[in-house]
């Protein structure tokens, strides 16, 4: 049974990679800030055998109970579609980015925080279907994200539920792409904006001031095939907690508390 499941999972990964997509969820970021002056930066990569995404995150607490965060997400995948009917095989690529900012309010506990973030961002997804047939979609995303974090000296756990409003405000689409893909894009145009939840988080080991983490994000309910959405991402991240890096300066704020 076990090998069967593994093979099946492998297939899923491959299958997920072999589809062009118009949206891919970035990781749900969970800032480990517990007091004014705390901050962190994270870089993570995620992907599948054919995709490689980059996730960059920075967060900082400028005021008591308040956080700002900035996320940048870069999606990239490429594969050669095998034409089983004997026609030509095309190299197909997906490139995209999403840049977003958010503000949050958090309540610190002895073990971590409960927080609520509200954010907005925009970006672009550009699919090249081969021989320069390109569909370029602009996207805007609004989100509300309740978050829980747990941290101790050596361990980090963050979970967030991201309620997303995803809008496709614009597109430039080469009509020569496969008619089926045009249908999908027209569906996005017509049904946008979409509201859906995404769940994600990370679990990490902390060596002051660095955290090495495993990250996961899954979008709920959106049938990927109907909309060409990438439903999940999984990957590893590296974080730096700024208050630990610049310890001295932060002493003050601790006393302030």
């Amino acid at each position, binding site marked *: 049974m076990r090998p069967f499941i593994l093979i099946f999972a492998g297939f899923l990964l491959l299958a997920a990679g072999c589809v062009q997509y118009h949206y891919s969820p970035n990781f749900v970021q969970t800032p480990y800030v517990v007091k004014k002056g705390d901050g962190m930066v994270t870089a993570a990569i995620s992907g599948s055998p054919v995709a490689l995404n980059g996730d960059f995150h920075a967060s900082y607490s400028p005021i008591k109970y308040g956080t700002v965060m900035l996320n940048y997400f870069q999606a990239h995948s490429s594969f050669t579609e095998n034409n089983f009917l004997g026609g030509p095989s095309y190299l197909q690529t997906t490139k995209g980015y999403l840049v977003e900012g958010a503000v949050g309010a958090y309540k610190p506990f002895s073990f971590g925080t409960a927080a609520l973030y509200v954010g907005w961002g925009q970006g672009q997804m550009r699919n090249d279907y081969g021989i320069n047939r390109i569909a370029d979609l602009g996207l805007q995303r609004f989100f509300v994200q309740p978050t829980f974090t747990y941290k101790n000296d050596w361990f980090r756990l963050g979970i967030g539920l991201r309620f997303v409003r995803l809008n496709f405000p614009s597109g430039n689409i080469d*009509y020569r792409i496969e008619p089926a893909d045009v249908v999908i894009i027209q569906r996005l145009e017509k049904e946008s904006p979409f509201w859906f939840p995404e769940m994600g988080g990370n679990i990490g080991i902390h060596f002051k001031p660095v955290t090495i983490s495993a990250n996961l994000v899954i979008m709920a309910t959106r049938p990927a095939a109907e909309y060409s959405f990438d439903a999940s991402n999984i990957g590893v991240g590296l974080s730096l907690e700024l208050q630990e890096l610049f310890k001295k300066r932060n002493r003050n704020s601790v006393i302030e508390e």
Partner: protein
Amino acid sequence: MKKLAPVFTLFALFLLLGACKSDFNYYYYSKEETEVLSQFLNLPELPDDYTVTFPSHLSNVGLFPRAVERDKAVLGRVIFYDKKLSKDGTVACANCHKQELAFSDDKAFSDGVYDRSTTRNSIALGSVANFSAYYGTDLNGSSAIRFFWDNRAETAAIQSRGSMTNEKEMDMTMHDIATTVEAQPYYAPLFKKAFGSTTVTDELVLEAVANFVNAMGSFQSDFDAEANQSTASYSGNFGNTVYDNDFSGFSAAQNRGKKLYNNNCASCHSGNMGRPVLQLANNGLESNPTDLGVGGITGLNEQKGSFKVPTLRNIALTAPYMHDGRFANLNEVLDFYNTGIQNHPFLHADLKTGNQPKHMNFSESDKTDMIAFLNTLSDEHLLDDKKFSNPFKQ
């Protein structure tokens, strides 16, 4: 917490902004391409859809159309109407295959280059999609339907080569065709769309025409509408599905005509108008034929005087009839099947009684009924479907 209030307000504003009307732009030709094309052609900004969909009564018995690639069909449409691709610059495919006649010609013999005349009657292309259809895996198998009255072409591409190089039709060499195509500025963008490059080869020209011709189907006839709602009462060999029960939407005359057709004609021309049951047959036009038909190609004695069994879709629109256009109207065709069948050693058994040609004994009202039925096989949509029309600016 209060400090955050303005920030939340800002996000609410963004949310509203995000709801603005979307701006999607679908493009096909670039500006430069449009400039070149619009000098010569009236093509829609976005290409037409050439997908062929069979009516359910045909797909239900496992009959499927050949896949058509839209961008190649668009290119094929221009080639089909381009008179430059003939030796004297006056003849295009469309000269002999006229849209208003379901892509047939109203002359027994069509005019080719230099007023040369063809030796056979132009075949209606209005249902090539039927001929190129296949059962299941039988794509190019021996029972796939072939092209031309003498079945000499296996595919629409091979057939097109025949038409282009026939000295009575367009009289070009394939090399001439490729160089002529290359010399017309409007082909470069179309080739780019269809094949990803502007390189013209004779194979690609043929592939494009074949895609256009393979997209021609006539499936919106009254017959199809009725058959879609009926269950076939008999399904014989080769998928010859026959509808013995009366169609509820047909008149009494049309239903009587259908019954006569099923009893006398369906064994060759097929009962569901899917594809002819037989590839070829000798239907007794001559006891001593001069045009040997299929036998003239294969040299087989038993095929001398045998011809392709044509589809009867759009038959009311495609007079004159038979390979030499000898019959001016359907009445004459029925008179022939009624009393005019000639004996021949290889006259098909279905047209014989014992050793003698069959006399079908249709009365005058039988003939009227049959013509009423044959009229239900026409699909008038095809005749003014813009995507099959002449794209050239006059």
